[in-house]
């Protein structure tokens, strides 16, 4: 029976969620494997585990529960060890490293901030700040919407201006919040958002961080700012920038091409 691993924590963690429901249907009960000063939070790995929404949530819920009472190094979803012994083997082998990370992340949580433009607000910004776009839009409107080519030309200019505004606002947002955080991890770029940034925040200064987010919302009303946290420090388990999961995506891409 292979072993699903949720996270690594200190053996001295005051409240590990032993018996809580984990991944699988029915949920496999959470177990604790101890090795020296470390503990791994695990369950049996269900056969054919897939990245379904309920499994991802189960993973996140177990980690939230551990994180609520102490520091945890969260595993990326879907980590499966051949058996319990190989888990404790890894704990023993890399004890020093994990203890150092637990110490570095102690009393700290992750807040993830994602932001989008409110579309008509950003279009206003773009048109107000660009006479050429404004003139072209007006000309198109006068002629009942404009020809296909006119529309493409206008749209192309607007898209470029919106893109520039996205970079500008993304950088401004990142900068506005970094002062209230211990560390920053910038997530992968995507057109789903103009900023995707995780901040490592000391629990005791969380109020300040939240206030900084509110300030950004007030200062940049043309942004929709989504804040999630406190979370286990997913983006800060390794020192330095989190490695992207690019290899797997590339493989899939090639397969499809």
């Amino acid at each position: 029976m292979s072993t699903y691993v949720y996270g690594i924590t200190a053996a001295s963690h005051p409240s590990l969620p032993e018996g809580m429901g984990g991944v699988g249907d029915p949920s496999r009960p959470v177990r604790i494997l101890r090795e020296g000063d470390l503990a791994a939070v695990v369950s049996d790995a269900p056969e054919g585990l897939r990245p379904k929404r309920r499994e991802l949530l189960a993973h996140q819920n177990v980690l939230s529960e551990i994180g609520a009472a102490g520091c945890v190094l969260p595993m990326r979803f879907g980590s499966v060890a051949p058996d319990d012994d190989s888990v404790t083997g890894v704990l023993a082998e890399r004890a020093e490293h994990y203890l150092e990370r637990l110490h570095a992340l102690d009393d700290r949580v992750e807040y993830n901030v994602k932001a989008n433009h409110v579309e008509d607000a950003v279009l206003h910004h773009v048109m107000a700040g660009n006479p050429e776009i404004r003139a072209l839009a007006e000309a198109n409107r006068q002629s009942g919407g404009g020809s296909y080519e006119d529309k493409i030309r206008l749209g192309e200019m607007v898209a470029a201006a919106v893109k520039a505004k996205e970079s500008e606002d993304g950088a401004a947002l990142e900068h506005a919040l970094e002062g209230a955080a211990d560390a920053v991890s910038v997530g992968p770029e995507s057109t789903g958002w103009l900023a995707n940034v995780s901040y490592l925040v000391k629990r005791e200064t969380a109020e300040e961080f939240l206030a900084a987010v509110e300030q950004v919302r007030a200062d940049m009303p043309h942004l929709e700012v989504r804040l999630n946290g406190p979370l286990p420090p997913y983006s800060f388990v390794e020192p330095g920038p989190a490695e992207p999961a690019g290899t797997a995506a590339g493989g899939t891409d090639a397969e499809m091409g």
Partner: protein
Amino acid sequence: MTVVPAQQTGGGGGSSGLYDVLELVLDRGLVIDAFVRVSLVGIEILKIDVRVVVASVDTYLRFAEACNRLDLEAGPRKSPGLPEIVGEVTESGARGKSKGALSGAADTISDAFKQAREGGSERETESRPRTRKSTAARRKEEQE
């Protein structure tokens, strides 16, 4: 973690907040090379789909339409007016293609999750490959 509610999403719907967290669960966190990872094929596709290329004719046309509709005199709205506009465009235009990047991504995600929930039943997957292929193709073009 007792001071602050577990989730503070400002303005956004519950599902987008959920996706925002799941993205972290899937993409970040500790990786130990001695362990294997369950196959995430469906999810990798989801990630590719999220990266819809912004510079497309569809986007240009959508922006042009939105600009025509925009009343400059009214001033920027402070409250998010996005759903309204996206909704209109989605309904009037060809579904799927002319959708905003945002709502397109959201749909893709919910589709993928729905697909995953239903254990990859053929009925659900049948409608997907074309989108995947075109997105992959576009991505390829982008890389070249």
